[in-house]
């Protein structure tokens, strides 16, 4: 909904670069000058280190030192240990589950915010959603220990209402706790993205559909969802991919059973098992890159200042 692109027939990239009118070939190179600092930063401190990790995943560690011997042993080792493979699968399905739940929780909220809340209150309510972000991530996760733990708020409530007579340990130190905390942590991402998308939707179409006899659910399915699909996809991407690499939340509330692949990677690297850690890292990194390529259209830059509607 970029008015600039709608108003001018020119494509998003200025078809008549101003520099051309000002001086010709020379300025072409200068145009790209803005990239130089970024290239230095990312060349030296992002691409190269990752390249080293890729290389490491194919080398060996002998006596705490990395030896430049090419081998796929690290990968073979990783897949030969049942625990590691299970952890990899668990990571993927925990991420899927967390993402689905996050979107399921965030969508009705975003819908409510756009449809039923007066415009001027919307911003305040959104700020309230982001406000928890202003507390330390670690402490927010840590607070859940006090809610989920055996002596925590939930158990106390259950016992106080006599629904149980002794603490229920289900809530903590296992995968459900990890999923819950992840949903809690990533809810704002999903809510904001879905809000932005729903906000751009033309609700008159909705009304028109209903006037034409469609029931609300049908209208939603056939009019709303297809149009917010890009926003939905973006929300999924921005929740699912980071969760794949999570290791702090599982470490703090996951206990012995809530281990995710991030924990494994940290463990390998702390123990100087660089090559194995590199192999595990690469598995996740490749998965992430594949997903980014598949969903590349969700990464389009959209002007948040454009008055879409």
């Amino acid at each position, binding site marked *: 909904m970029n008015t600039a692109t709608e108003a001018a027939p020119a494509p998003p990239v200025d078809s008549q670069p101003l520099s051309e009118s000002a001086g010709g070939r020379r300025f072409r190179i200068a145009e790209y000058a803005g990239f130089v600092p970024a290239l230095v930063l990312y060349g030296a401190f992002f691409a190269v280190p990752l390249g080293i990790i890729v290389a490491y995943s194919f080398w060996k560690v002998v006596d*705490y030192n990395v030896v430049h011997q090419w081998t796929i042993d690290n990968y073979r080792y990783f897949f030969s240990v049942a625990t*590691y493979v299970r952890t990899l699968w668990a990571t993927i399905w925990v991420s899927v589950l967390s993402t689905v739940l996050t979107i399921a929780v965030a969508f009705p909220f975003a819908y409510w915010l756009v449809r039923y809340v007066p415009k001027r209150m919307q911003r305040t309510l959104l700020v309230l959603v982001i406000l928890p972000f202003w507390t330390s991530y670690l402490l927010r996760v840590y607070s859940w220990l006090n809610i989920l733990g055996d*002596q925590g708020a939930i158990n106390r409530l259950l016992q106080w209402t006599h629904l149980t007579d002794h603490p229920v*340990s289900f809530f903590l130190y296992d995968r459900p706790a990890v999923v819950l905390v992840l949903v809690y942590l990533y809810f704002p991402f999903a809510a904001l993205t879905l809000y932005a998308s729903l906000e751009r939707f033309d609700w008159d179409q909705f009304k028109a559909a209903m006037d034409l006899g469609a029931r609300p659910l049908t209208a939603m399915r056939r009019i709303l969802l297809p149009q917010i699909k890009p926003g939905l996809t973006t929300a999924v991407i921005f929740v699912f991919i980071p969760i794949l690499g999570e290791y702090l939340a599982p470490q703090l509330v996951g*206990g*012995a059973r809530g281990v995710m692949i991030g924990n494994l990677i940290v463990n390998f690297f702390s*123990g*100087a098992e660089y090559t194995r850690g590199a192999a595990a890292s690469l598995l996740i990194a490749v998965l992430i890159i594949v997903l980014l390529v598949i969903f590349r259209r969700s990464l389009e830059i959209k002007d948040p200042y454009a008055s879409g509607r």
Partner: protein
Amino acid sequence: MSVYERRVTRAGLLKAGAAGAVGLTFARPAFGGLTQLEATTLNWLTWSDHYANDQLAAVAKKIGIRGRPTLFSDNADAYLKIKRTGSQFDIVSGDALWVPKYHKDGLTESFDLSSLPVSKQLFSIARSFPFWKDGSNYMGYPFSWSTVQIYYNPKYVTTVPDSWHALLDKKYAGKISLENIPTDVMAIAGRATGAKKPYSMTSGEISRAKAFLKSFKPNVLKLASQNNEVVRALADGSAWIGITNLGTDDRVKDAGGPVVKPAYPKEGTVGFIDSEQIVKASKNKAVFEKFINTTEQAPWIAKNFLTNGRPLFNEKAWKLLVNQGHGDRAKRLLYNQPQKALQMTIKGPAGDEQAYVDAFNEVFGA
């Protein structure tokens, strides 16, 4: 235009804020207190029960040397960290047979123990552990010791667990907490499966230990990174059994938790003797002695005992504790019998460290 006006004014405020932050960076040298901080800070790689925040504050006030602790749980991790980070750390705490390893690999420096006045407060036996001697020097300043045994909550654990195998009982599923120290957990598993030397197991013994851990895993609630976490798990009831140091029963009670009792598995267990070592590459070696001299004084050690419950090597602190009326408790926890420390299977690096860590990881994942 008002929209832009508003944005610019808000931006103006942000500009001021940013300028302030950048100004802080360059004004840093002007903060006299801070340069002092950087000049006399000792980076201390240690366990959480080796210090107390008020102790560090008092020491800093007294002699102007600030200790900055970084925590770790496994000796193997600390060893690797020191190996990798050169002069980042000044002091590193280490257990028993790890100390000679640090020294042999050139990571730490030995010093003349008797040149530290506070060392006279130590039990004499602590000043002459043969494996810490380096000629007339000593490789570390002795701090504390303990066996690692089972503590259980008798309310839920009705039969006394007098064997490591008792912990495999399915009714303890998800109810056991222990520290995340792969080498030592493997050693305990080795003890449980009859390995002759838990810290130098043969590959057959390692596999047996690993199999034991595999059956043990479903009963593990949490692999804690410091023993406070084990105490907390026992205190709030989420764990019924803890594998941890002496004095846990007192600590659990202190944390408002239930009564827990110790149990000594018949297969035997491991134990630690720890010390503070000077990192060889440290740039602040000159102040090590001053720092230790102030930090390891008897009153602090006595307080440390009351907080953490396991015995320490400071004999003067023992006398203080008796005078303060805690003699019984200290006696119960073997404070005045440091010679017992030598009777334990003391912790150390494994013969094949990699195999130990691999076996552990392959069971627990991470």
